[in-house]
């Protein structure tokens, strides 16, 4: 199987750039205005650390919940202006459970995900985040290769 045959029918460079810019703007505003990192795994996972969800020792809980609420409401706000884009699942329910567990544990162990290490970490020029990005990208490429072309 040859590599790097471009899927022109699904290639959306402009929407990608613009959507990425909006994500970057969100992360940028959060850091410059409030010194917080828009790493989604960290924002969610931080709720479970050190009793934050119930006791809120650092007064750090409510903005996290509101950030999550904003993410949850994004599709509803989007659909006020345009129909939602197609969102196609690629695995079975069992696959989703395995994938979810791995994403949850892995991102917390690594202190970051696509947003925390990918967007924010690389924008800080952090070598630590670059190492994380190389690791999760490589694992993603290998996993999909195995699923789609070997198994």
């Amino acid at each position, binding site marked *: 199987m040859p590599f790097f045959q471009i899927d022109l029918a699904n*290639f959306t460079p402009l929407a990608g750039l613009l959507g990425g810019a909006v994500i970057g703007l969100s992360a940028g505003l959060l850091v410059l205005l409030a010194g917080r990192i828009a790493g989604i795994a960290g924002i969610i996972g931080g709720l479970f650390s050190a009793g934050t969800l119930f006791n809120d020792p650092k007064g750090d809980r409510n903005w996290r919940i509101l950030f999550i609420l904003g993410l949850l409401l994004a599709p509803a706000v989007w659909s006020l202006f345009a129909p939602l884009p197609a969102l196609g699942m690629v695995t079975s329910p069992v696959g989703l459970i395995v994938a979810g567990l791995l994403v949850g544990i892995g991102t917390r162990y690594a202190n970051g995900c*696509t947003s925390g290490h990918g967007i924010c970490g690389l924008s800080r020029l952090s070598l630590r985040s670059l190492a994380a990005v190389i690791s999760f990208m490589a694992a993603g490429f290998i996993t999909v290769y195995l699923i789609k072309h070997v198994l």
Partner: protein
Amino acid sequence: MKMNILGFATGLLFGLGLLLAGMANPAKVQGFLDLAGLWDPSLAFVMGGGIGVAIVFFTLAKRTPKTLLTHEDMKLPTSTVIDQRLIIGSALFGIGWGIGGICPGPALVLVGTGSPDGVLFAAAMLAGMLIFERLPKKA
């Protein structure tokens, strides 16, 4: 209060960006990770657009002693450690990302669309995060 409004606004903006970028579509994400199939490079443009904008803000933040809205000391992450915990944790994340085509932000956006599959993935992800809190933290 200001922090809560900012949290909501940036969360909403982030979610709209994910939808526009195609990141909330697992099939598109897997299309990017599938180098040996018909390859959709769009997500490289998402990273490019995201970093292109965010790098301006992060560069400013490094030179700004107090956060502009909350007037706290600017504290950016300081860790430079590259250890097993970082690499293996990221690899586990990458395997899960490859299987499902979903990372944490899009998981919540998918829940917001009312997708039962999205809810299932997000529930498993939250369970994974809770399991992490019970695991030994040393690398």
